[in-house]
C-alpha cells in the first residue's frame, strides 16, 4: 500500500511529470481537490455521478497538461483544476441541451480571472475513440505497449514482467502490436485525426 504523501504544488507537478510517484500524486489530487470540484459541479445542476466523471476527466487532462510541460504555474493547481472542471461541465451542459441549462450556462459563464485551460480540454468523442481503439487492441498488446511506451520498461524488464522467453520474442510481439494499432488508426481516419490533434495540442 502506498504511504500518504503530502505534496506542495511544485512537488505534485514534478511527481506527475517524471511519473515516479504518479499513483501517489493521483491519490493526492483526489484527497485534496476532489471535494472542491464535486461541490462545484453538484452546486450547478450535476449529479454525484456527473461530479465524479468530471473530476476523473479533470485529473486526466491535468496530468496530460503537466506531462507535456504546459502547466506553467500561472495559477495554483486547485484553481487550474476548478477551471478545467468548469469548462468540462459547461461543455457537458451544452451537449445535454436541457431547457434549464441556459440559466446555468449563464450562471457559470466564463470568469476573466479563470486560468486559460483551452489546451487541457479533451473532447468526449475523442475519449470514446481512444477507449474503443485500445479495447480492440486486446489486453496482451495493450499491456506490452503500455509497459514499453508509458512505463518506460526496458526489454529485459519486460521479459521478466511478462514471462516471455527472451527479449527478441518481446521485441517481435511489440512490433506486431504497434503495427496492429497503427493499422487500426489507418482504418479509422476520424479517430486518427482527433488523436493527432490531441498529441499536437
Amino acid at each position, binding site marked *: 500500500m502506498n504511504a500518504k504523501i503530502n505534496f506542495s504544488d511544485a512537488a505534485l507537478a514534478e511527481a506527475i511529470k517524471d511519473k515516479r510517484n504518479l499513483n501517489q500524486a*493521483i*491519490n493526492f489530487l483526489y484527497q485534496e481537490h476532489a471535494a472542491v470540484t*464535486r461541490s462545484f459541479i453538484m452546486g450547478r445542476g450535476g449529479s454525484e455521478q456527473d461530479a465524479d466523471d468530471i473530476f476523473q476527466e479533470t485529473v*486526466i487532462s491535468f496530468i496530460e497538461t503537466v506531462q507535456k510541460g504546459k502547466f506553467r504555474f500561472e495559477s495554483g493547481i486547485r484553481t487550474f483544476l476548478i477551471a478545467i472542471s468548469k469548462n468540462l461541465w459547461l461543455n457537458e451542459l451544452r451537449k445535454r441541451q436541457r431547457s434549464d441549462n441556459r440559466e446555468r450556462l449563464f450562471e457559470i459563464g466564463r*470568469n476573466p480571472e479563470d486560468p486559460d485551460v483551452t489546451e487541457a480540454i479533451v473532447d468526449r468523442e475523442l475519449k470514446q475513440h481512444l*477507449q474503443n481503439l*485500445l479495447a480492440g487492441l486486446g489486453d496482451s498488446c495493450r499491456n506490452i505497449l503500455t509497459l514499453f511506451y*508509458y512505463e518506460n520498461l526496458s526489454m529485459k524488464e519486460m521479459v521478466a514482467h511478462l514471462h516471455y522467453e527472451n527479449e527478441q520474442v518481446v521485441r517481435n510481439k511489440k512490433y506486431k502490436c504497434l503495427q496492429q494499432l497503427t493499422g487500426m488508426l489507418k482504418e479509422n481516419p476520424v479517430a486518427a485525426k482527433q488523436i493527432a490533434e490531441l498529441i499536437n495540442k
Partner: protein
Amino acid sequence: MLPNKEFLLIDYLDKNLSPEEMVQVESMIRNDKQLAKEWAYLKMAVGAVERNAIQEQVVSARQNFGKMTRPATKTSGAVVRNMYTTALRAAAILIVVLGGAMFYKYSTVNNTSLYQQNFTDYTLSTARGESNQDAIEEAYRNKNWNAVMKGFNQSAVKTNEYYFLSGMAALELKKYPQAVSSFEHILNVNANSSDKYFQDEAEYYLALAYLMNHQIDKGVSMLNQIKANKNQVYNPLARQISATDLKILELKNQK
C-alpha cells in the same frame, strides 16, 4: 511500406539508433511523404497508448478512493430553507399582520440558529485498502473529537489538514475560540504560500466559528465573501443563507 523501413522508424521511435542514424532517419522523414505519414501514425499510436494508460491509472485511483470527501448536511433536523423567499412572503403578510411576523423573524434569528442551520458535517474520505491510517484522521472518522485534539496537540508536524481537523473537532466540542484559532492559522499560512490547502473549507467553517464566538461582524463579512465567490467550494451552501438573516444578525450585534 517496406518492412525494413518500418523497423527503422520503430527503432527511431524507440531511440535504438546511433546519433548518426537518428539524423539520417529525421532527414528521410522530412523528405519522404510516405515515411512522414507512417511516422505520424506511429506517434498517434504511442499517444493513444499513453492517454489510455493515464486514464486507467486515474480510474483505478477513483475506484480506490471510494467515497470522496464531501460535506454532508447534518441530519439533526436543521432544514436549509430559502429564507429570502420566506422573507419576501413574510413582508407580504406584514402588510396585514404588520409588526407580528417581523417581530417573530427578528426574534428567532440569532447566531446559534444560523450556525445550526448551516453547519454541515465534514466527512473525511475513506481510501479503501490504505493500510497506514493516520491517527488524527482515524480519530476524526470515528468522531472521537477529544482524540483529534489530543493527536493534534501531540503532533510534531502540523499540516493544514491537521489544523482543519482540529478546528472541526473544536467546533464539535463547542470550543469556538480554539476553532477560530485553528481556521485562522490555515488562512494565515495560505496567505504566504502558493498552496491553498483547505482554504475554502477553513473560510466557511471559520465564518461559522466566528458567529458562535460572538465575532458577528467577521462571520457575516466572511459569509458574504463566500456568497460572492462562485469558485469557492462552499459558495452553494453560503448562498442558501439569506441576506435578511445576516442583516438581522448584524443589527442585533450593533445593539
